[in-house]
């Protein structure tokens, strides 16, 4: 009984680690890899181009758990900090990334828009987009 319990706890713990976030891009992008820092600059709209292609980052809604993880691991900001950041950018005429409602829409958007960049979990990945970065995050 105790052994079973230990195994269950171990499996739960194991399950809670090791989730991946994939940063995906349109197939026409002339790069195959981005660093975390580059992704951060792209999502803060400080980096606008990759070799003359205008980038179009897309976000999930602020309440989406994957967006919260993306904010935490890539942007290293919470929602309140981001809102203050975008207040400042608004004052300079720079809009935040487009928000889409689901990961499926993100894949669809990125596959169709030339400079499209998004983030998804592996189960939504298909051949219409390419993976630019894989980030290991805690599941919960």
């Amino acid at each position, binding site marked *: 009984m105790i052994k079973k319990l230990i195994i269950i706890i171990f499996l739960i713990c194991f399950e809670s680690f090791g989730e991946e976030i994939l940063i995906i891009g349109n197939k026409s992008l002339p790069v195959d890899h981005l*660093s975390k*820092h*580059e992704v951060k*600059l792209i999502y803060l709209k*400080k*980096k*606008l*181009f990759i070799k*003359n292609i*205008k980038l179009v980052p897309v976000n999930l809604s602020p309440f989406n758990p994957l967006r919260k993880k993306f904010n935490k691991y890539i942007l*290293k*900001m*919470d929602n*309140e*900090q981001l*809102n*203050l950041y*975008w*207040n*400042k950018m*608004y*004052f*300079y*005429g720079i*809009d*935040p990334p487009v928000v889409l409602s689901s990961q499926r829409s993100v894949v669809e958007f990125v596959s169709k828009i030339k400079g499209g960049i998004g983030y998804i979990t592996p189960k939504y990945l298909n051949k219409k987009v390419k993976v630019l970065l894989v980030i290991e995050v805690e599941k919960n």
Partner: protein
Amino acid sequence: MYGRKNFLILLISFLFLFSFSFSEDLIDYQFGRGIKFKNCPLRFGGYFAVKYENTSQDEYEFNIEDAALLIYGDLTQKTRFFLEIGAKELYVKKKEIEDEEDENENEDEDEDKDEDKKTFIKEEKELNIKPKIERLYFDYLYSDYLKIRIGQFITPIGLWNPVHIPPLKWTLIDPVTATKFFPRLTTGIKFFGLLPFQNETWEYSLFIQKTKNINETHNNLKTDDFIGGEIKKYFESVSVGLALGKFKDKQIKKDLNFVGLNFDFTCTRLEVMAEYMHGKEKDTNIDNNDRSSYYLQGVYRVFSKNYLILRKEYFKEVYNKNKINAYLIGWNYRPLYPISLKLELQWKKDSVKKESEREFATSFSILF
């Protein structure tokens, strides 16, 4: 003058008309992020601020201090347009206490001034609804490493000056460091962007002005000859900036040089920022009229949407032997991210006036 006023009224009416006459599909409005019409590359937004100040000398000021309209957008993939048009101090009601001796400065200086000193109370109301162009520029985005801005823009120096409007500032009272050393606005050309090394963790901006401002009404210092720049390095949660510049002050007709350093540390709940400025007059008969100033400010998110601000500020002017020490405690409540309610208290000791001043200020500001 009236033309501009009518223009603003027309523009606002236009916005309201359109916001009611189109269906939701054709309009994208987000509170605090402006309004955008389908098939129009421009976004329309703005901000508004009202404040109340009271000093230990029983002076007060109620001020509808800012109302501005922003119009901006990407014209093409590589070009952007930005216009800010606004009115400052739309309605001011204030009470000031002034020393009568100020008007008799040339009288015998040996007299005991304290005995003759009389004060009088001045109460006044002002209404000013003349909109002015605050910023007007075009950007050409050649690459991330070279962006070019032409027009009237905010002088890209320091931490405070680039976000000096009430809904964005942490406190209502500006530190002297951000207001006395260089003109807040520049009309000319600016080159800016990332630097292509060290993982793009450096940013630069260089600007030059060789003409009068598009509109200088809202500029703190008037100039038509200004050159400067700043370089900034970003670490994980820290940024450090170094700024240099020189300009001709049209009012005192002197050349001024300045150098500045700034530092910012940010983590989830805390932001610590500091700025130091040193200014020097050139071609002057005075041996040394250097001025320097710094502030150190901490902003702590006590709980969600509520921020405590503590600030120490110092200003020194060599020639006048003037030193100012100021301490500020403030509270900034943001019930919704585009709204800011501020409450603050500042104690200031001025070595020339030889008396401490207390200033209480509160404000409401909003981005829409």
